[in-house]
Protein backbone atom coordinates (compact mmCIF):
# COMPACT_ATOMS: atom_id res chain seq x y z
CA UNK A 1 0.00 0.00 0.00
CA UNK A 2 1.51 3.29 -0.99
CA UNK A 3 0.83 6.30 1.19
CA UNK A 4 1.85 4.46 4.36
CA UNK A 5 -0.12 4.47 7.59
CA UNK A 6 1.10 3.07 10.91
CA UNK A 7 -0.28 2.27 14.32
CA UNK A 8 1.62 4.35 16.87
CA UNK A 9 -0.33 3.62 20.01
CA UNK A 10 -2.58 1.04 21.60
CA UNK A 11 -4.59 0.92 24.80
CA UNK A 12 -6.94 -1.69 26.22
CA UNK A 13 -8.62 -2.82 29.39
CA UNK A 14 -8.19 -6.27 30.92
CA UNK A 15 -10.78 -8.55 29.39
CA UNK A 16 -13.18 -10.01 31.95
CA UNK A 17 -16.52 -11.80 31.76
CA UNK A 18 -18.10 -9.18 34.05
CA UNK A 19 -17.19 -5.51 34.58
CA UNK A 20 -19.84 -4.20 36.97
CA UNK A 21 -17.70 -1.44 38.45
CA UNK A 22 -17.34 0.60 35.25
CA UNK A 23 -19.70 1.98 32.64
CA UNK A 24 -18.82 1.47 28.99
CA UNK A 25 -17.71 5.10 28.85
CA UNK A 26 -15.34 4.65 31.79
CA UNK A 27 -13.96 1.45 30.29
CA UNK A 28 -13.26 3.16 26.96
CA UNK A 29 -11.72 6.17 28.72
CA UNK A 30 -9.15 3.91 30.39
CA UNK A 31 -8.20 2.35 27.06
CA UNK A 32 -8.03 5.78 25.38
CA UNK A 33 -5.74 7.32 28.00
CA UNK A 34 -3.39 4.34 27.75
CA UNK A 35 -3.37 4.50 23.95
CA UNK A 36 -2.57 8.22 23.86
CA UNK A 37 0.22 7.67 26.36
CA UNK A 38 1.57 4.75 24.33
CA UNK A 39 1.53 6.97 21.22
CA UNK A 40 3.42 9.75 23.03
CA UNK A 41 0.67 12.16 22.00
CA UNK A 42 1.21 15.55 23.63
CA UNK A 43 -2.57 16.08 23.76
CA UNK A 44 -5.78 14.43 22.57
CA UNK A 45 -6.36 17.70 20.74
CA UNK A 46 -3.72 16.62 18.20
CA UNK A 47 -6.09 13.92 16.93
CA UNK A 48 -7.81 14.80 13.64
CA UNK A 49 -10.48 12.13 13.45
CA UNK A 50 -12.19 9.36 15.40
CA UNK A 51 -13.87 6.11 14.39
CA UNK A 52 -15.95 3.84 16.63
CA UNK A 53 -17.13 0.38 15.62
CA UNK A 54 -20.48 -0.52 17.15
CA UNK A 55 -23.96 -1.92 16.53
CA UNK A 56 -27.12 -0.40 18.03
CA UNK A 57 -28.70 -3.62 19.23
CA UNK A 58 -25.54 -4.77 21.00
CA UNK A 59 -25.32 -1.45 22.83
CA UNK A 60 -29.05 -1.30 23.53
CA UNK A 61 -29.15 2.23 22.19
CA UNK A 62 -30.56 3.47 18.91
CA UNK A 63 -28.11 5.72 17.04
CA UNK A 64 -25.33 4.70 19.43
CA UNK A 65 -22.83 7.05 17.82
CA UNK A 66 -24.41 9.76 19.99
CA UNK A 67 -22.49 8.38 22.94
CA UNK A 68 -19.06 7.93 21.38
CA UNK A 69 -17.09 11.21 21.54
CA UNK A 70 -16.66 12.15 25.21
CA UNK A 71 -14.64 9.21 26.48
CA UNK A 72 -12.17 9.50 23.58
CA UNK A 73 -11.58 13.25 23.71
CA UNK A 74 -13.49 13.54 20.45
CA UNK A 75 -15.84 16.38 21.40
CA UNK A 76 -16.33 18.72 18.43
CA UNK A 77 -14.06 16.65 16.22
CA UNK A 78 -14.70 14.69 13.02
CA UNK A 79 -16.05 11.39 14.31
CA UNK A 80 -18.25 8.65 12.98
CA UNK A 81 -19.29 5.11 13.64
CA UNK A 82 -18.82 2.02 11.49
CA UNK A 83 -20.99 -1.04 11.91
CA UNK A 84 -18.16 -3.46 11.60
CA UNK A 85 -15.31 -5.23 13.32
CA UNK A 86 -12.56 -3.11 14.79
CA UNK A 87 -10.52 -4.04 11.70
CA UNK A 88 -13.16 -2.29 9.55
CA UNK A 89 -12.42 0.74 11.71
CA UNK A 90 -8.70 0.36 11.02
CA UNK A 91 -9.38 0.21 7.27
CA UNK A 92 -11.55 3.33 7.59
CA UNK A 93 -8.88 5.25 9.48
CA UNK A 94 -6.30 4.23 6.88
CA UNK A 95 -8.45 5.63 4.08
CA UNK A 96 -9.08 8.87 5.95
CA UNK A 97 -5.37 9.39 6.47
CA UNK A 98 -4.58 8.55 2.86
CA UNK A 99 -6.85 11.35 1.63
CA UNK A 100 -4.34 13.78 3.11
CA UNK A 101 -7.07 15.54 5.10
CA UNK A 102 -6.28 13.83 8.42
CA UNK A 103 -2.87 13.05 9.94
CA UNK A 104 -3.83 11.23 13.14
CA UNK A 105 -6.95 9.10 13.53
CA UNK A 106 -8.16 7.07 16.53
CA UNK A 107 -10.11 3.81 16.26
CA UNK A 108 -12.15 2.40 19.12
CA UNK A 109 -14.27 -0.71 19.70
CA UNK A 110 -15.53 -2.29 22.87
CA UNK A 111 -17.58 -5.10 24.29
CA UNK A 112 -19.99 -4.82 27.19
CA UNK A 113 -21.58 -8.10 26.26
CA UNK A 114 -22.15 -8.85 29.95
CA UNK A 115 -24.85 -6.17 29.89
CA UNK A 116 -26.70 -7.84 27.02
CA UNK A 117 -29.15 -10.23 28.60
CA UNK A 118 -30.70 -11.75 25.48
CA UNK A 119 -27.75 -12.06 23.13
CA UNK A 120 -29.00 -15.07 21.15
CA UNK A 121 -32.38 -13.44 20.65
CA UNK A 122 -30.69 -10.33 19.33
CA UNK A 123 -28.55 -12.38 16.96
CA UNK A 124 -31.74 -14.06 15.80
CA UNK A 125 -33.07 -10.57 15.09
CA UNK A 126 -30.29 -10.21 12.49
CA UNK A 127 -31.86 -12.85 10.27
CA UNK A 128 -34.11 -12.11 7.29
CA UNK A 129 -37.46 -11.11 8.82
CA UNK A 130 -39.53 -12.67 6.08
CA UNK A 131 -37.70 -15.80 4.96
CA UNK A 132 -35.61 -16.93 7.93
CA UNK A 133 -36.82 -15.43 11.18
CA UNK A 134 -40.23 -17.15 11.15
CA UNK A 135 -38.43 -20.53 11.17
CA UNK A 136 -37.33 -19.68 14.70
CA UNK A 137 -33.96 -21.41 14.45
CA UNK A 138 -31.22 -20.45 16.88
CA UNK A 139 -28.71 -18.53 14.76
CA UNK A 140 -25.75 -20.56 16.10
CA UNK A 141 -27.25 -23.42 14.12
CA UNK A 142 -26.16 -21.58 10.97
CA UNK A 143 -22.58 -22.07 12.15
CA UNK A 144 -23.35 -25.76 12.52
CA UNK A 145 -24.66 -25.87 8.94
CA UNK A 146 -21.48 -24.17 7.82
CA UNK A 147 -19.31 -26.57 9.83
CA UNK A 148 -21.10 -29.67 8.54
CA UNK A 149 -20.59 -28.54 4.97
CA UNK A 150 -16.96 -27.52 5.60
CA UNK A 151 -16.05 -30.91 7.08
CA UNK A 152 -17.85 -32.71 4.27
CA UNK A 153 -16.12 -30.78 1.47
CA UNK A 154 -12.65 -30.39 3.00
CA UNK A 155 -12.41 -33.81 4.66
CA UNK A 156 -11.09 -32.18 7.80
CA UNK A 157 -12.44 -33.96 10.86
CA UNK A 158 -14.10 -33.35 14.20
CA UNK A 159 -10.80 -34.23 15.83
CA UNK A 160 -9.12 -31.41 13.93
CA UNK A 161 -11.71 -28.98 15.25
CA UNK A 162 -11.13 -30.20 18.80
CA UNK A 163 -7.40 -29.72 18.36
CA UNK A 164 -7.98 -26.06 17.48
CA UNK A 165 -9.71 -25.61 20.82
CA UNK A 166 -6.91 -27.40 22.65
CA UNK A 167 -4.20 -25.32 20.97
CA UNK A 168 -5.83 -21.96 21.50
CA UNK A 169 -6.80 -22.55 25.10
CA UNK A 170 -3.26 -23.81 25.76
CA UNK A 171 -1.73 -20.75 24.08
CA UNK A 172 -3.93 -18.59 26.29
CA UNK A 173 -1.96 -19.65 29.40
CA UNK A 174 0.87 -17.42 28.21
CA UNK A 175 -1.36 -14.42 27.63
CA UNK A 176 -2.21 -12.33 30.68
CA UNK A 177 -5.32 -11.06 28.87
CA UNK A 178 -6.91 -14.47 28.67
CA UNK A 179 -10.07 -15.49 30.54
CA UNK A 180 -10.52 -18.99 29.14
CA UNK A 181 -7.14 -20.74 29.26
CA UNK A 182 -7.57 -24.44 29.87
CA UNK A 183 -5.86 -27.81 29.41
CA UNK A 184 -8.18 -30.08 27.50
CA UNK A 185 -8.22 -33.37 25.65
CA UNK A 186 -9.87 -34.12 22.33
CA UNK A 187 -12.42 -36.23 24.12
CA UNK A 188 -13.28 -33.48 26.58
CA UNK A 189 -13.93 -31.05 23.73
CA UNK A 190 -16.03 -33.46 21.73
CA UNK A 191 -17.90 -34.71 24.79
CA UNK A 192 -18.75 -31.23 26.03
CA UNK A 193 -22.40 -30.29 25.86
CA UNK A 194 -23.73 -30.86 22.39
CA UNK A 195 -25.25 -27.60 21.29
CA UNK A 196 -25.74 -27.53 17.57
CA UNK A 197 -24.40 -30.78 16.22
CA UNK A 198 -21.65 -31.11 15.10
CA UNK A 199 -20.79 -28.10 17.32
CA UNK A 200 -20.17 -28.70 20.98
CA UNK A 201 -20.08 -26.14 23.75
CA UNK A 202 -16.28 -25.92 24.04
CA UNK A 203 -15.90 -25.20 20.32
CA UNK A 204 -17.58 -21.82 20.66
CA UNK A 205 -15.92 -18.70 22.08
CA UNK A 206 -17.46 -17.15 25.21
CA UNK A 207 -18.23 -13.42 25.48
CA UNK A 208 -16.03 -11.12 27.56
CA UNK A 209 -16.00 -7.37 28.19
CA UNK A 210 -13.18 -5.06 27.16
CA UNK A 211 -12.25 -1.92 25.25
CA UNK A 212 -9.58 -1.30 22.61
CA UNK A 213 -8.23 1.99 21.31
CA UNK A 214 -5.61 2.45 18.59
CA UNK A 215 -3.87 5.57 17.32
CA UNK A 216 -3.01 5.65 13.61
CA UNK A 217 -0.83 8.21 11.86
CA UNK A 218 0.64 9.00 8.47
CA UNK A 219 4.30 8.21 7.87
CA UNK A 220 5.61 11.62 8.82
CA UNK A 221 3.80 11.82 12.14
CA UNK A 222 4.28 8.13 12.89
CA UNK A 223 8.04 8.34 12.76
CA UNK A 224 8.00 11.39 14.97
CA UNK A 225 5.68 9.92 17.59
CA UNK A 226 6.84 6.37 18.09
CA UNK A 227 10.14 4.55 17.75
CA UNK A 228 8.35 1.37 16.78
CA UNK A 229 5.51 2.23 14.44
CA UNK A 230 3.67 -0.84 13.14
CA UNK A 231 2.80 -0.39 9.50
CA UNK A 232 -0.50 -1.33 7.92
CA UNK A 233 0.45 -2.88 4.61
CA UNK A 234 -2.93 -3.99 3.34
CA UNK A 235 -6.63 -4.03 4.21
CA UNK A 236 -9.17 -6.12 2.36
CA UNK A 237 -12.83 -6.44 3.25
CA UNK A 238 -15.62 -8.29 1.47
CA UNK A 239 -19.26 -9.16 2.05
CA UNK A 240 -20.72 -12.27 0.45
CA UNK A 241 -24.47 -12.87 0.37
CA UNK A 242 -26.42 -12.18 3.57
CA UNK A 243 -29.02 -14.76 2.65
CA UNK A 244 -28.49 -18.32 3.78
CA UNK A 245 -29.81 -19.59 0.48
CA UNK A 246 -27.27 -18.05 -1.89
CA UNK A 247 -23.97 -17.77 -0.03
CA UNK A 248 -20.77 -19.56 -0.99
CA UNK A 249 -20.80 -22.23 1.74
CA UNK A 250 -18.02 -24.27 0.14
CA UNK A 251 -15.52 -21.56 -0.73
CA UNK A 252 -15.90 -19.05 2.12
CA UNK A 253 -15.52 -16.24 -0.37
CA UNK A 254 -15.63 -13.41 2.16
CA UNK A 255 -12.32 -14.67 3.58
CA UNK A 256 -10.81 -15.67 0.24
CA UNK A 257 -11.55 -12.40 -1.53
CA UNK A 258 -10.69 -10.18 1.44
CA UNK A 259 -7.32 -11.93 1.64
CA UNK A 260 -6.67 -11.43 -2.05
CA UNK A 261 -7.51 -7.75 -1.75
CA UNK A 262 -5.13 -7.29 1.17
CA UNK A 263 -2.34 -9.30 -0.51
CA UNK A 264 -2.63 -7.14 -3.61
CA UNK A 265 -2.17 -3.97 -1.56
CA UNK A 266 0.68 -5.45 0.46
CA UNK A 267 2.31 -6.80 -2.71
CA UNK A 268 2.27 -10.29 -1.22
CA UNK A 269 2.59 -12.93 -3.92
CA UNK A 270 2.86 -15.95 -1.66
CA UNK A 271 1.16 -15.59 1.72
CA UNK A 272 2.51 -18.98 2.81
CA UNK A 273 6.07 -17.70 2.84
CA UNK A 274 5.71 -13.95 3.21
CA UNK A 275 3.58 -13.87 6.37
CA UNK A 276 5.08 -15.03 9.66
CA UNK A 277 2.06 -15.39 11.95
CA UNK A 278 -1.71 -15.21 12.01
CA UNK A 279 -4.48 -14.05 14.31
CA UNK A 280 -7.56 -15.56 12.73
CA UNK A 281 -11.22 -15.55 13.64
CA UNK A 282 -11.98 -18.65 15.71
CA UNK A 283 -15.44 -17.79 17.02
CA UNK A 284 -16.19 -21.45 16.35
CA UNK A 285 -13.21 -23.80 16.27
CA UNK A 286 -13.73 -24.99 12.67
CA UNK A 287 -13.67 -21.35 11.50
CA UNK A 288 -9.92 -21.12 12.18
CA UNK A 289 -9.26 -23.95 9.72
CA UNK A 290 -11.86 -22.77 7.21
CA UNK A 291 -10.45 -19.25 7.25
CA UNK A 292 -6.81 -20.40 6.94
CA UNK A 293 -7.72 -22.41 3.87
CA UNK A 294 -9.82 -19.64 2.31
CA UNK A 295 -6.98 -17.18 2.89
CA UNK A 296 -4.70 -19.46 0.90
CA UNK A 297 -2.43 -20.37 3.82
CA UNK A 298 -3.30 -24.02 3.30
CA UNK A 299 -4.80 -25.85 0.37
CA UNK A 300 -8.29 -27.19 0.81
CA UNK A 301 -8.40 -29.94 3.42
CA UNK A 302 -4.76 -29.55 4.42
CA UNK A 303 -5.08 -27.33 7.48
CA UNK A 304 -6.27 -30.07 9.83
CA UNK A 305 -3.27 -32.28 9.37
CA UNK A 306 -0.93 -29.29 9.50
CA UNK A 307 -2.45 -28.50 12.88
CA UNK A 308 -1.88 -32.06 14.08
CA UNK A 309 1.74 -31.80 12.96
CA UNK A 310 2.22 -28.71 15.08
CA UNK A 311 2.49 -26.24 12.19
CA UNK A 312 0.00 -23.85 13.83
CA UNK A 313 1.77 -23.94 17.21
CA UNK A 314 3.86 -20.97 18.36
CA UNK A 315 7.03 -22.82 17.27
CA UNK A 316 5.48 -24.15 14.05
CA UNK A 317 5.74 -22.89 10.50
CA UNK A 318 2.44 -20.96 10.60
CA UNK A 319 1.86 -19.81 14.18
CA UNK A 320 -1.88 -19.15 14.45
CA UNK A 321 -3.67 -17.51 17.36
CA UNK A 322 -0.61 -17.40 19.58
CA UNK A 323 -2.66 -14.99 21.70
CA UNK A 324 -5.07 -17.78 22.49
CA UNK A 325 -7.61 -16.39 20.05
CA UNK A 326 -11.19 -15.78 21.05
CA UNK A 327 -11.48 -19.40 22.21
CA UNK A 328 -8.73 -18.80 24.75
CA UNK A 329 -9.15 -15.13 25.61
CA UNK A 330 -12.87 -14.68 24.96
CA UNK A 331 -14.85 -13.04 22.20
CA UNK A 332 -15.56 -9.32 22.09
CA UNK A 333 -17.81 -9.71 19.05
CA UNK A 334 -17.02 -6.77 16.74
CA UNK A 335 -14.21 -5.64 19.05
CA UNK A 336 -12.38 -8.94 18.54
CA UNK A 337 -10.26 -7.34 15.84
CA UNK A 338 -8.83 -5.35 18.75
CA UNK A 339 -7.53 -8.47 20.45
CA UNK A 340 -5.93 -9.56 17.17
CA UNK A 341 -4.38 -6.17 16.56
CA UNK A 342 -2.96 -5.97 20.09
CA UNK A 343 -1.25 -9.33 19.53
CA UNK A 344 0.07 -8.17 16.14
CA UNK A 345 1.57 -5.05 17.68
CA UNK A 346 3.10 -6.87 20.65
CA UNK A 347 4.70 -9.52 18.45
CA UNK A 348 5.93 -7.03 15.85
CA UNK A 349 7.33 -4.71 18.48
CA UNK A 350 8.99 -7.65 20.22
CA UNK A 351 6.97 -7.05 23.38
CA UNK A 352 5.04 -10.32 23.55
CA UNK A 353 6.99 -11.61 26.57
CA UNK A 354 6.66 -15.35 27.20
CA UNK A 355 5.01 -16.00 23.84
CA UNK A 356 7.29 -13.82 21.71
CA UNK A 357 7.79 -15.46 18.33
CA UNK A 358 11.32 -15.77 16.97
CA UNK A 359 10.33 -14.51 13.57
CA UNK A 360 7.73 -11.78 13.56
CA UNK A 361 8.16 -9.33 10.71
CA UNK A 362 4.78 -9.52 9.04
CA UNK A 363 1.48 -10.74 10.48
CA UNK A 364 -2.07 -11.22 9.26
CA UNK A 365 -5.23 -10.51 11.25
CA UNK A 366 -8.59 -11.72 10.02
CA UNK A 367 -12.02 -11.00 11.50
CA UNK A 368 -15.46 -12.31 10.61
CA UNK A 369 -18.60 -10.57 11.84
CA UNK A 370 -20.21 -13.76 13.09
CA UNK A 371 -23.53 -15.41 12.32
CA UNK A 372 -25.57 -14.79 10.29
CA UNK A 373 -23.17 -12.55 8.31
CA UNK A 374 -20.72 -13.22 5.51
CA UNK A 375 -18.54 -10.18 6.09
CA UNK A 376 -14.83 -10.59 6.66
CA UNK A 377 -11.77 -8.38 6.78
CA UNK A 378 -8.04 -9.02 6.47
CA UNK A 379 -5.39 -6.60 7.71
CA UNK A 380 -1.66 -7.14 7.18
CA UNK A 381 0.70 -5.59 9.71
CA UNK A 382 4.44 -5.25 9.36
CA UNK A 383 7.50 -3.93 11.17
CA UNK A 384 8.59 -2.38 7.92
CA UNK A 385 6.83 0.26 5.87
CA UNK A 386 6.22 -0.03 2.14
Amino acid at each position, binding site marked *: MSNSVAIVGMGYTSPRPL*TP*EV*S*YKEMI*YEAAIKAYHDANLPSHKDIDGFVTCAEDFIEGTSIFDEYTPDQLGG*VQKPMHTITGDLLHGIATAVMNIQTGQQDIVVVEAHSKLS*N*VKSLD*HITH*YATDPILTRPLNVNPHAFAALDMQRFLHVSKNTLKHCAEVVIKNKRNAFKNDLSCHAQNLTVQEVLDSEETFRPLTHLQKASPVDGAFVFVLANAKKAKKLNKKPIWIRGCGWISDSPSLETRAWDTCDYAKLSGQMAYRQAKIKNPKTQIDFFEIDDTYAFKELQHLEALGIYDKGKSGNALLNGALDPDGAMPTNVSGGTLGVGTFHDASGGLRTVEMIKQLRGEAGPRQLKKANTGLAFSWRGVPTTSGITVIYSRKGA
Partner: protein
Amino acid sequence: MNLKGTPLKGKDFENGHVLTTKSRSNAFYAWDTGQGIGKYLQGLKEGKILGTYCKKCDRTVVPPRVFCELCMGSNIEWRVLKDTGRINTFSICYVNWDASRVEHPHLPAVIEIDGATKGHGIMHVLDEVAPKDIKIGMKVKAVWKRKEERKGDITDIQYWKPL
Protein backbone atom coordinates in the same frame (compact mmCIF):
# COMPACT_ATOMS: atom_id res chain seq x y z
CA MET B 1 -37.80 10.89 -14.25
CA ASN B 2 -39.52 7.53 -13.93
CA LEU B 3 -39.40 6.76 -10.22
CA LYS B 4 -39.98 3.34 -8.70
CA GLY B 5 -41.85 2.72 -5.49
CA THR B 6 -45.33 1.47 -4.63
CA PRO B 7 -47.10 3.50 -1.94
CA LEU B 8 -49.56 1.47 0.13
CA LYS B 9 -52.80 2.54 1.74
CA GLY B 10 -54.61 1.12 4.75
CA LYS B 11 -57.12 -0.68 2.55
CA ASP B 12 -54.34 -2.66 0.87
CA PHE B 13 -53.84 -4.41 4.20
CA GLU B 14 -57.52 -4.67 5.06
CA ASN B 15 -58.44 -6.44 1.85
CA GLY B 16 -55.42 -8.72 1.97
CA HIS B 17 -53.60 -7.37 -1.08
CA VAL B 18 -50.43 -7.12 0.95
CA LEU B 19 -49.01 -9.73 3.28
CA THR B 20 -46.86 -9.00 6.33
CA THR B 21 -44.80 -10.98 8.79
CA LYS B 22 -44.61 -9.83 12.38
CA SER B 23 -41.98 -10.22 15.04
CA ARG B 24 -41.01 -8.49 18.21
CA SER B 25 -37.44 -7.85 19.27
CA ASN B 26 -36.55 -9.67 22.43
CA ALA B 27 -33.74 -7.32 23.49
CA PHE B 28 -32.93 -7.00 27.19
CA TYR B 29 -30.08 -5.18 28.84
CA ALA B 30 -28.78 -4.46 32.34
CA TRP B 31 -26.39 -1.54 31.99
CA ASP B 32 -23.55 -1.08 34.45
CA THR B 33 -23.86 2.46 35.76
CA GLY B 34 -20.17 2.68 36.62
CA GLN B 35 -18.47 5.12 38.98
CA GLY B 36 -19.86 8.43 37.75
CA ILE B 37 -23.53 7.74 37.10
CA GLY B 38 -23.58 5.10 39.84
CA LYS B 39 -22.73 7.72 42.43
CA TYR B 40 -25.14 10.23 40.85
CA LEU B 41 -28.03 7.78 41.15
CA GLN B 42 -26.99 6.92 44.72
CA GLY B 43 -27.07 10.66 45.47
CA LEU B 44 -30.61 10.95 44.08
CA LYS B 45 -31.68 8.15 46.39
CA GLU B 46 -30.34 10.22 49.25
CA GLY B 47 -32.17 13.31 47.98
CA LYS B 48 -29.05 15.05 46.63
CA ILE B 49 -28.03 16.17 43.17
CA LEU B 50 -24.31 15.49 42.69
CA GLY B 51 -22.06 17.14 40.14
CA THR B 52 -18.35 16.98 39.43
CA TYR B 53 -15.84 19.79 39.29
CA CYS B 54 -12.84 19.76 36.94
CA LYS B 55 -10.09 21.90 38.41
CA LYS B 56 -8.24 22.30 35.15
CA CYS B 57 -11.27 23.54 33.22
CA ASP B 58 -12.82 25.28 36.28
CA ARG B 59 -16.15 23.72 35.37
CA THR B 60 -18.84 22.01 37.46
CA VAL B 61 -20.98 19.65 35.42
CA VAL B 62 -24.12 17.59 35.85
CA PRO B 63 -24.74 14.75 35.19
CA PRO B 64 -21.38 14.01 36.83
CA ARG B 65 -18.53 12.10 35.18
CA VAL B 66 -15.28 10.75 36.56
CA PHE B 67 -13.27 12.19 33.69
CA CYS B 68 -13.54 15.56 31.98
CA GLU B 69 -14.42 15.18 28.30
CA LEU B 70 -12.77 18.49 27.43
CA CYS B 71 -9.30 18.14 28.99
CA MET B 72 -9.48 14.32 29.29
CA GLY B 73 -8.17 14.60 32.86
CA SER B 74 -9.51 12.55 35.74
CA ASN B 75 -8.65 15.04 38.47
CA ILE B 76 -12.21 15.81 39.48
CA GLU B 77 -13.95 16.66 42.75
CA TRP B 78 -17.48 15.70 43.72
CA ARG B 79 -19.85 18.55 44.59
CA VAL B 80 -23.30 18.53 46.11
CA LEU B 81 -25.41 20.88 44.00
CA LYS B 82 -28.66 22.57 44.97
CA ASP B 83 -32.02 21.11 44.06
CA THR B 84 -33.03 24.40 42.52
CA GLY B 85 -32.33 25.83 39.10
CA ARG B 86 -33.49 27.89 36.16
CA ILE B 87 -35.39 26.86 33.07
CA ASN B 88 -33.03 26.97 30.09
CA THR B 89 -35.74 25.88 27.68
CA PHE B 90 -39.05 24.01 27.81
CA SER B 91 -41.80 22.53 25.65
CA ILE B 92 -45.50 21.83 26.03
CA CYS B 93 -45.96 18.44 24.46
CA TYR B 94 -49.44 17.29 23.43
CA VAL B 95 -48.62 13.95 21.82
CA ASN B 96 -47.24 10.57 22.78
CA TRP B 97 -44.54 8.85 20.80
CA ASP B 98 -47.17 6.98 18.77
CA ALA B 99 -48.71 10.34 17.75
CA SER B 100 -51.78 9.90 19.98
CA ARG B 101 -52.91 12.99 21.93
CA VAL B 102 -52.28 13.21 25.67
CA GLU B 103 -54.89 14.43 28.12
CA HIS B 104 -52.55 16.65 30.11
CA PRO B 105 -49.58 17.99 28.18
CA HIS B 106 -46.11 16.79 29.13
CA LEU B 107 -43.82 19.62 30.20
CA PRO B 108 -40.21 18.66 29.48
CA ALA B 109 -37.51 21.22 30.23
CA VAL B 110 -33.77 21.65 30.41
CA ILE B 111 -33.04 22.93 33.89
CA GLU B 112 -29.75 24.62 34.69
CA ILE B 113 -28.85 23.40 38.16
CA ASP B 114 -27.79 25.90 40.81
CA GLY B 115 -24.21 25.22 41.78
CA ALA B 116 -23.23 23.92 38.35
CA THR B 117 -21.39 26.15 35.88
CA LYS B 118 -23.75 28.37 33.89
CA GLY B 119 -25.33 26.56 30.99
CA HIS B 120 -25.05 23.11 32.58
CA GLY B 121 -28.34 21.40 33.20
CA ILE B 122 -30.33 18.21 32.99
CA MET B 123 -33.50 17.22 31.16
CA HIS B 124 -36.51 16.72 33.42
CA VAL B 125 -40.22 17.56 33.58
CA LEU B 126 -42.22 20.42 35.12
CA ASP B 127 -45.51 20.32 37.04
CA GLU B 128 -47.64 22.39 39.41
CA VAL B 129 -47.56 25.17 36.83
CA ALA B 130 -49.98 26.28 34.13
CA PRO B 131 -48.33 25.80 30.72
CA LYS B 132 -48.97 29.43 29.77
CA ASP B 133 -47.06 30.62 32.84
CA ILE B 134 -43.81 28.80 32.05
CA LYS B 135 -40.99 31.14 31.04
CA ILE B 136 -37.38 30.63 30.10
CA GLY B 137 -35.26 31.84 33.02
CA MET B 138 -37.91 30.90 35.60
CA LYS B 139 -36.60 29.64 38.96
CA VAL B 140 -37.70 26.10 39.79
CA LYS B 141 -37.26 23.59 42.61
CA ALA B 142 -37.17 19.80 42.61
CA VAL B 143 -40.11 17.89 44.08
CA TRP B 144 -38.72 14.65 45.46
CA LYS B 145 -40.39 11.34 46.01
CA ARG B 146 -40.66 10.30 49.63
CA LYS B 147 -37.44 8.82 50.95
CA GLU B 148 -38.76 5.26 51.17
CA GLU B 149 -39.98 5.43 47.56
CA ARG B 150 -36.66 6.57 46.11
CA LYS B 151 -34.68 3.86 44.38
CA GLY B 152 -31.63 5.53 42.86
CA ASP B 153 -33.19 6.70 39.62
CA ILE B 154 -33.68 10.01 37.84
CA THR B 155 -37.40 9.65 38.61
CA ASP B 156 -36.60 9.97 42.34
CA ILE B 157 -37.22 13.61 41.47
CA GLN B 158 -40.91 13.56 40.53
CA TYR B 159 -40.83 16.89 38.75
CA TRP B 160 -39.78 20.53 39.14
CA LYS B 161 -42.13 23.33 40.17
CA PRO B 162 -41.81 27.12 40.21
CA LEU B 163 -39.93 28.42 43.23
